[in-house]
């Protein structure tokens, strides 16, 4: 459920709106709606998630109805419709990665962070989830961390512990 304070108006920085303009220029005139997916990625990178207020502002910018933004944001699995941890660990959970230990790795992450899939740690730093195939099956298990989508390959419990410790220091 969305809380009222989370729907408070948001402001987009001038850097962000400059990016919007560059993105929108890639498409023919009248087809600015094509910019929707890339723009939502930029908004999420800046704000951490897509609040209804942020989506409404995107709709206004692209001159489309808010529902056109909501239906897209809710269809694609990369967009977060509620706040996440500062670092979201997304572990591939599909077949080939499971052949080389992805399931054990997810159990380990759950224990290390002390939160279940989709939950945020009390300090707000971490959340994690299993995602479908990340197209790196030969280098599994793998995980990625947005908004840069930095990629970590050939993981085991030890490497993940080191990674989590490094992220804590950031």
């Amino acid at each position, binding site marked *: 459920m969305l809380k009222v304070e989370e729907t408070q108006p948001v402001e987009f920085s001038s850097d962000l709106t400059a990016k919007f303009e560059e993105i929108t220029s*890639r498409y*023919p005139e009248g*087809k600015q*709606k*094509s*910019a*929707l*997916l*890339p723009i*939502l*990625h930029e908004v999420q990178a800046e704000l951490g998630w897509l609040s209804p207020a942020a989506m409404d502002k995107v709709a206004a910018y*692209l001159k*489309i109805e808010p529902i*056109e933004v909501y*239906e*897209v944001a809710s*269809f*694609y*699995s*990369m*967009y977060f419709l509620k706040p996440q941890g500062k670092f979201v660990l997304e572990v591939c*959970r*599909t*077949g*080939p990665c*499971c*052949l*080389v230990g992805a399931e054990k790795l997810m159990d380990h992450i759950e224990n290390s962070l002390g939160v279940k899939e989709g939950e945020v740690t009390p300090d707000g730093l971490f959340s994690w989830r299993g*995602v*479908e*195939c*990340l*197209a*790196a*099956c*030969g*280098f*599994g298990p793998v995980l*990625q961390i*947005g*908004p*840069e*989508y*930095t*990629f970590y390959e050939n993981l085991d419990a030890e490497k993940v512990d080191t990674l989590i410790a490094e992220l804590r220091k950031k």
Partner: protein
Amino acid sequence: MARKLLLEHINVPGIHTLDVYRQKGGYRAVEKALKTLTPDEVVEEVKKSGLRGRGGAGFPTGMKWSFLAKPEGVARYLVCNADESEPGTFKDRYLMTHIPHALIEGMIVASYALGAKTSYIYVRGEMMPQIRILERAIAEAKSAGFLGKNILGSGYDLELYVQPGGGAYICGEETALLESLEGKRGNPRIKPPFPAIAGLYGCPTVVNNVESIAAVVPIINDGGDEYMKIGIGRSTGTKLISASGNLVRPGVYEIELGLPVEEFIYSDEYCGGIANGKRLKATVAGGSSVPVLPANLTLKLANGEPRLMSYESLSEGGFATGTMMGSGGFIAFDEDQCMVRNTWNFARFYHHESCGQCSPCREGTGWMEKVLHRIEYGHGKMSDIDLLVDVAKKIEGNTICPLGDAAAWPVASAIRHFRDEFEWHVREPLKSLETNYGIAKYAEPIAKPEVTTEN
């Protein structure tokens, strides 16, 4: 050593930069095409090469190009499908990471052949690092005059953009990809009209896989006839194979089509055999959507001849004893792997990725996941096995796009070849939670096409 057309220079330091790529002969195809060939002559070379779509369907690329409608005054588009999401497939990501200019060069030549003035590379959103790599490479190509206005003085203009997706497997289906590129949900369109007539923004559009477009470069450099000499029969050229699972050396390999499957798995030039000294139990030869095969049918055809890595040989025997080339995602399972668990895992994937537009797929994928889950976790009934076959049959062929088939085939084929393992799960629910069924007879030589089980 086998010939390499795409990955020849993969280990050259700095090959991701324009300078090094050009030192290794890069952008010769652009010069040759734009300065000496007409667009139709480029299409003709690709037709001659026999190149077949590398994304999974295997449709001849040159023929796809020749279907493109060319009404006066209407824009045409080339869209590259870089939404690589098929479990087991990671060749496009590999190519874009290491040799981005191979894709960009291919895009310029292909766009010229099709008369496109604006082209897009639709990359799955999770590949943000690859998107940054491509954008850098495009900027380099543009400042060297290979993109933009009047390329190499030929009078041809082209703008190339990278578009991120949002993390939806379905956008690998070409009409869903176009919907997504238009800023909408990735719901596949009803065909006809095909994209060649009405694609992006309702204009004639060609959608090609990354590897298909990159393959255009050696075809133009050396000629379609030379390309056709590589491979076997109608499987011409080289193919990138993504090898994963329980192998000594998983990774991306470029093979000449026609390589024996056994050599690919066991030779030191390729995967180096099964990891940890285990035995091979099963394979998925072309990405999760194609039928799974036991070890014996992977290495040999039902008649005992060796099976080859080619479109024809992999599908030899139809679905009874064969599989498909698909996207070239080759997954190997060792003797400790559970076919029920893997089938459940794939079923969960398709349930998660169904766009929800067609009822048989939306509901059926959920049912298959649920039933497989209960068999895997010791609550299955013997009748569940036939129930799964029934659900799979009712999805197959009854949906707008091939995701329904792709969800049905792994389940149907797992039961076809590993039924005794499913039955064992139902009969021995507690045991199946603690241990695995093992390799059973799956690697034994085939006596007859249909192996009966007595265990």
